[in-house]
């Protein structure tokens, strides 16, 4: 049956974006974008981006009709798009690569005022490395995954270099034995790296390092102060020196933590990085603005000093403007710079991934490693168990059941949302905690930024700034 004979409806995931010379039709379901021009361009765009209804395809020119079908802008009547999104989501939970986040220690040499961790001296001991390898071996074999990614995490992970040296070697040996690709990344404050950073990066196959800054030297040193008051160094100078060295060997994500107190430093810091030549190196630095906020229960006090979403977006826009053509600015919501339908989940939702806390407990999200009541299992169960993550503790089982069952497509709000294919409910931890404030902000981000991301992504200029409304988001 040809397209003109079948019965079709417009997709609930269509959006129309006015640009110079017409409008763009974007599908959050497929990622396709069509530019429409001509006398009826806006009419056609609005019709297709309105509440789903059966359409008379005779009104569309044949060439457009073919594009609409190919881009999933129109779908056979009765086709359950939400069910298709659900299939993609669960496929991603199964297929997303095995990521092993290892919290080498909860200890940290800095005392950032906003830290959500308890800076205890809990640390993974060398003996735990063997258990990590045992667990990883089983998981690689049972999952059939052909890649292993290790993320070194803390506290400050380099305060426990002994564990990194031991575990990294064993895990790399395991990957050689199982013919699995190995890679690693690290999140660090940049103050206590070994002298030969190039050798360290290469030895541990680190291909991505995130180094955090809190603005220019004065603010940074005040906020990321050494806990040891006898420490004479500037944490800013040490981190800058480290980035200088790392950029010969590895991609560095320069994270700029922003809140109300240091927001004036953001552009000066970017200019500083530019003057330092960080964007012209073998591995050009990537700027990652990050809004300091209440990441966990332990940092709920951050609500007072966090920027509003609109304030934060304005700052990010200023950084992007500064960046044009010179360097990369990564938005965590759309790392590709375009709202691509999601095909992978965060490590917390990936069925085969796990976070090992410094207390030898398993967690699903790295932000929970200071919250033992959020653990989902034990690295070393009390008795023989083929799957140690299946701890017997009722609390752990309850936590694990929540993560195992998380599915945004069945949630009352997400299931109605036209951003769903590009968002998948956003951060699941916010759902776990019932953080309505954060969940509302996730929707607001897409309403505020989707049109810009679509237009920029295909090299078009917005007719005017466009913020979508909740009626665009929910089309019941």
């Amino acid at each position, binding site marked *: 049956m040809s397209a003109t004979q079948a019965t079709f409806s417009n997709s609930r995931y269509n959006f129309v974006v006015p640009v110079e010379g017409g409008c763009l039709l974007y599908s959050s379901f497929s990622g*396709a*974008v069509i530019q429409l021009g001509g006398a*009826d361009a806006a009419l056609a765009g609005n019709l297709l981006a*309105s509440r789903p209804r059966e359409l008379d395809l005779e009104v569309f020119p044949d060439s457009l009709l073919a594009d609409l079908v190919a*881009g999933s802008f129109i779908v056979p009547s009765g086709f359950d798009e939400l069910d298709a999104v659900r299939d993609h989501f669960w496929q991603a939970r199964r297929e997303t690569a095995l990521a092993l986040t290892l919290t080498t220690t909860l200890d940290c040499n800095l005392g950032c005022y906003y830290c959500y961790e308890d800076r205890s001296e809990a640390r993974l001991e060398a003996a735990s490395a063997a258990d990590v390898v045992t667990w990883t071996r089983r998981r690689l074999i049972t999952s059939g995954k052909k890649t292993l990614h290790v993320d070194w995490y803390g506290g400050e992970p380099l305060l426990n270099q002994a564990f990194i040296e031991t575990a990294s070697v064993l895990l790399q040996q395991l990957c050689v034995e199982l013919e699995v690709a190995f890679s690693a990344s690290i999140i660090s404050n940049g103050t206590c790296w070994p002298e030969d950073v190039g050798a360290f990066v290469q030895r541990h196959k680190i291909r991505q390092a995130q180094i955090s800054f809190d603005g220019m030297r004065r603010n940074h040193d005040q906020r990321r102060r050494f806990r040891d008051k006898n420490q004479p160094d500037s944490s800013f100078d040490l981190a800058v020196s480290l980035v200088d060295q790392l950029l010969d060997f590895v991609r560095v994500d320069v994270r700029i933590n922003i809140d109300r107190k240091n927001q004036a430093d953001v552009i000066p810091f970017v200019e500083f990085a530019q003057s330092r030549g960080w964007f012209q190196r073998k591995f050009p630095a990537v700027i990652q603005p990050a809004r300091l906020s209440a990441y966990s229960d332990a940092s709920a006090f951050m609500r007072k000093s966090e920027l509003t979403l609109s304030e934060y977006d304005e700052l990010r826009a200023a950084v992007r403007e500064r960046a044009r053509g010179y360097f990369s600015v990564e938005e965590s919501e759309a790392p590709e710079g375009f709202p*691509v339908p999601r095909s992978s989940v965060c490590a917390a939702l990936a069925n085969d991934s796990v976070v090992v806390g410094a207390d030898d407990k398993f967690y699903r999200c790295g932000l929970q490693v200071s919250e033992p009541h959020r653990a989902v299992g034990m690295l070393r169960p009390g008795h023989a168990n083929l799957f140690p993550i299946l701890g017997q503790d009722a609390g752990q089982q309850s936590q694990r059941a929540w993560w195992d069952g998380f599915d945004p497509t069945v949630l009352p709000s997400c299931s109605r949302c036209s951003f769903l294919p590009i968002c998948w409910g*956003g951060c699941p931890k*916010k759902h776990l905690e019932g953080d309505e404030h954060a969940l509302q902000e996730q929707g607001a981000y897409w309403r505020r930024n989707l049109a810009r991301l679509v237009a920029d992504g295909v090299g078009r200029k917005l007719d005017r700034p466009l913020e979508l409304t909740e009626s665009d988001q929910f089309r019941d």
Partner: protein
Amino acid sequence: MEADLFSFFLCSFTNNGATINAFPGNAIAVELNMAAKTGVTLIASDSKNPIGKTKPGTKLEVVSVTLATAASGKRPKIGARLCGGTSTCLAVVEV
């Protein structure tokens, strides 16, 4: 066959029927009388000065060019992000 009827304001980029001018200066309303067709599309407006009316059997005047295909829109299966979202917390890591 009787056509469904719904109001549709071209100028509405909110998709909710609100009368907000998306294209300033164009008080747009279009009538598409497709009553003889299955599955609707009578687009009506109470505007006194619609900028266009479409006769039965005619097509919308639209030219199109695909800028991103569904295939090109697929994200490579390399992402295992430790975190994302507006309250960025950990790193975004591509595996």
